[in-house]
């Protein structure tokens, strides 16, 4: 059992080791290593300029890395030109040949590989069916909508059944609504075909909803690799915490015994290694703050004392209606000058009859309150 598992470990479909890419003096990729399983859907996620597209182009052989190796299916392809690799690619711009019909676009890579004319025709029809555009074969790309064009680009990329599918911001040029529906279509298609897929995106929602695993990148470095829930629930760096979803970030002081002092109050938090008194950033997601109803303020101690169960009283400084929930801006004596954002459900607001200016008791769950080194100590943002 163990031996078989070890064997499977060695047979990772794509292995990237110690990848560096220099453009003159600028380092676009710094020591990137990662592995992708066969059939996996991996997203490279990061802000623009983080190196995600550079990494994708290195994997495709379009811009070969300066150092490091890329191995696909057990074969070292580090220095091979694109034509000698095994992948299909879809670009943000679709890159459909404008003067060829949809059919001719899809069959472009199927010609002169030893397929009979009938087989090519059948395959094109099959692909058009697969992407849900069976009757569009005779049209030209300019006659299709953006979403349709991108589906054709996808069909062209998978036409010759490549081992690896690369998607470079495939949805960025589309309308928000089309983007969401195509997201599901691509994901479903990928699952059906079982093709190993790497997608580059700067849209966290897209990455979280599509990827089996996410590679979060920043400044040419991999910040974290993990499943969408891992990345969201347990960010390993302040950058990831900040980039994925929303996060309250407040300067704080680490205390002994897994506690932290925020404003005038100490809280229990996720276990940490900081020395007592170290400057840190305490983080909690707005939706993790639990409202405990209106507070009368009676019988509660003054600032500096921690309430049992990490509960404190706050003032509702402002409220913003965001459709499916309310965003409350919380302040108050116990927080000092700091402000916290909390997402409160419409139900909770109604039940507790909350409004601006009221006092509210909130609970900060210790397992959701995480500390990171202060920005001054960490890497430059």
């Amino acid at each position, binding site marked *: 059992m163990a031996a078989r598992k070890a064997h499977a470990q060695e047979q990772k479909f794509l292995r990237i080791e*110690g990848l*560096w890419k*220099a453009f003159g003096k600028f*380092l676009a990729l*710094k*020591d990137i290593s990662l592995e992708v399983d066969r059939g996996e859907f991996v997203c490279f996620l990061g802000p623009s300029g983080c190196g995600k597209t550079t990494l994708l182009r290195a994997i*495709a*052989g*379009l811009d*070969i*890395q*300066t*150092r*490091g190796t890329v191995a696909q299916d057990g074969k070292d392809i*580090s*220095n*091979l*030109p*694109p*034509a*000698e*690799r095994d*992948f*299909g*690619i879809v*670009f943000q*711009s679709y*890159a459909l*040949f*404008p*003067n*060829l019909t949809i059919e001719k676009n899809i069959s*472009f*890579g199927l*010609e*002169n*590989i030893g397929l009979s004319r009938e087989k090519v025709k059948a395959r094109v029809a099959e692909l058009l069916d697969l992407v849900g555009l069976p009757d569009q074969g005779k049209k*030209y*790309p*300019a*006659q299709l909508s953006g979403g349709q064009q991108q589906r054709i680009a996808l069909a*062209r*990329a998978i*036409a*010759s059944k*490549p081992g690896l599918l690369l998607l470079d911001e495939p949805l960025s040029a589309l309308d928000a609504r089309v983007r969401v529906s195509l997201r599901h279509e691509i994901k479903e298609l990928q699952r059906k075909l079982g093709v190993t897929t790497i997608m580059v995106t700067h849209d966290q929602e897209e990455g979280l909803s599509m990827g089996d695993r996410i590679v979060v990148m*920043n400044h040419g*470095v*991999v*910040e*974290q690799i993990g499943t969408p829930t891992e990345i969201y629930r347990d960010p*390993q*760096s302040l*950058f990831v915490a900040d980039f994925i979803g929303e996060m309250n970030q407040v300067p704080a002081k680490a205390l002994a015994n897994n506690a932290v002092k925020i404003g005038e109050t100490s809280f229990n938090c996720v276990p940490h290694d900081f020395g007592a008194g170290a400057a840190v950033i305490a983080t909690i997601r707005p939706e993790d703050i639990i409202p405990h109803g209106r507070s009368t303020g009676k019988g509660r101690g003054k600032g500096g004392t921690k309430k049992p169960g990490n509960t404190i009283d706050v003032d509702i400084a402002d409220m913003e209606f965001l459709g499916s929930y309310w965003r409350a801006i919380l302040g108050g004596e116990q927080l000092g000058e700091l402000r916290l954002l909390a997402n409160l459900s419409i139900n909770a607001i109604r039940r507790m009859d909350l409004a601006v200016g009221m006092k509210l008791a909130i609970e900060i769950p210790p397992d959701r309150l995480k500390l990171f*080194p202060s920005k001054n100590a*960490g*890497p430059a943002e």
Partner: protein
Amino acid sequence: MSDISYSAMPQGEDIKPKLGTDDWVMRGFIAVIAIYLIIALALPLYAMLSKSMATYQFDLTQYEFQVSDEAGNFGGEVFSAKALNDREKIYSSEDLITGSDGRLDVTKFFPDFSFRSPVHYKVRSLSATAFYLSGSERRSGPEWFEVDSNQFRKIVLRPVAAFGFDNFKRYFATPSLVRSITNSLLISTISTVITVILAFGFAYSLSRSCMRFKSVFRLLAMAPILVPSLLPGIALVYLFGNQGMLKPLMMGESIYGPYGIVAGSVFFTFPHAMLIITTALAISDARLYEAAVTLRASRWRTFWTVTIPGARYGLFSAAFVVFNLVITDFGLPKVIGGQYNMLAVDIYKQVIGQQNFEMGAVVSVVLLIPAMFAFTIDRIIQRKQVALLSARSVVFEPNANPRFDWLCFAYCSLIAVFIAGILLVCQYAALIKFWPYDLSLSLKNYAFDLMDGGGWNAYRNSIKLALLTAFFGTIIVFTGAYMVEKTNGFKTGRTLFQFLAMLPMAIPGMVLGLAYIFFFNNPGNPLHVIYGTMAILVLCTVTHFYTVSHLTAVTALKQMDNEFESVSASLKQPFYKLFARVSVPVCLPAILDISIYLFVNAMTTVSAVVFLYSTGTALASVAVLNMDDAGDVAPAAAMGMMIFYTNVIARTIHAVLSKGLLRSTQAWRSR
């Protein structure tokens, strides 16, 4: 994770990408076209530069003679040629400076020489590089060479070649030659100022007024591009020449000289300036005008604070292009310049008139300097204009304003009358029997075969040249542009190629033609075989007009998605399939533009080919020049108008073809 500090990459070799078949083939193509440009451009220019530095001088100290008595016995004194020359004072030191073909008669050293005399002569040279000819036999060396008196007539000395700036020193010491520099600069500057102002007014009227007949005006303004630059010269002679129709308007001044050159230059450079300025005006942002209106700025103030600054790059660019065209033009000052010397004409006079190739090369180098300068400035400005273009702006839509519109209409009509007038005068001159004495109509001026200049054959040759140039030129230019745009890596090679492709624009046609003589007329050159054939004319014309064609192709290619190549490679298709099935069809409009550009220019060009045609390959444009030179001005005008009509037809065919092709192969363009 992120707190690891990355100082630098690990040491070691960079990964060397393995080159695929496509990479090699594309690099091969770049190399082939680069070699083409080196042979057709770089090497001839090098030959010309070295020619301008080559000096030829008879070195009399290197030759010695001995004379026998009447019985043929030698025993007398040995004379050096220098001693003989000093004694007899035959050749001055000026006489001893010569060209590569210089030959010095030696019998003059012996005043009592007679070819019937029984006296024998001995000749020798003291070094192996001091040559003399006996008939056609080339000899040198310290062994005595004995000849009888009859053969001694056929002994000539050959000059010794050296490198140095002597030619330039001589050039700058000759006032008549140096005056051409100031003449050329003066005429070019004046013509530039006038043309740019006139063209700006025209372009402004076209883009900022609501006057009628805009398309007619635009068409008429482009007409001068379709005729050789010397044609306006002929028309001006008919209008203002010694027997001109409007001679009194000159008030005693002569049209032959600066007035004629400037007037003709304005005519033939007008469309170039107008095109550039129209483009510059078209990209200016309408929002700026709206802002000016809301700020209650006067029309005058808006003009100076919005219009002029917005079009300034276009104006500068137009100025340098016009300057370059005028200073390098040869046909016009040749026809109407009279005694007023210009640099480009000097090259022609030195080479064709005096057979002084070295001095021709020197003038060429002198002419290269302002041309290169104007070219460089223009390139810098163009780069800035591109940056301006990329900004998103709103297209300006003029509003009707009757007074302003009528003013514009009147102004444009004036320009149109000038342009149409020049062409009509030429056509009229071609059709009347004998100006100004017999004004009856006749076609006798079209009997080109009865005149010098090549006859109808020259016309047929011109069409052949234009077709061949358009065909081969388009293939070479587009392929080269594609390879250089779409090849990965290979940066040095591509930069070199870009430089070579831009160079022709900076080289005046006269300079290129002369450089071709030096390079291809060298018997040691294996390409000598094409000298005097149609091939060298095609080669020269393609090279002469390479840059603009190249830029057209590059612009079209840049508009194509850069990822096409990536997609094609990922689909494992060879690049030539993408090239043939996608790149060429998508760029077809640009390809057609390149071919018509090459065709029209091949029809009208004079400057480069005037040095290179032979009796079998005489050209229509050169025939215009030669017939005019020979006094057959009316037939010259007739031939010039033939070129005009041919180009009009070619342009019409091009327009129809483009439209038809667009409809059939580019259905994808419309939704």
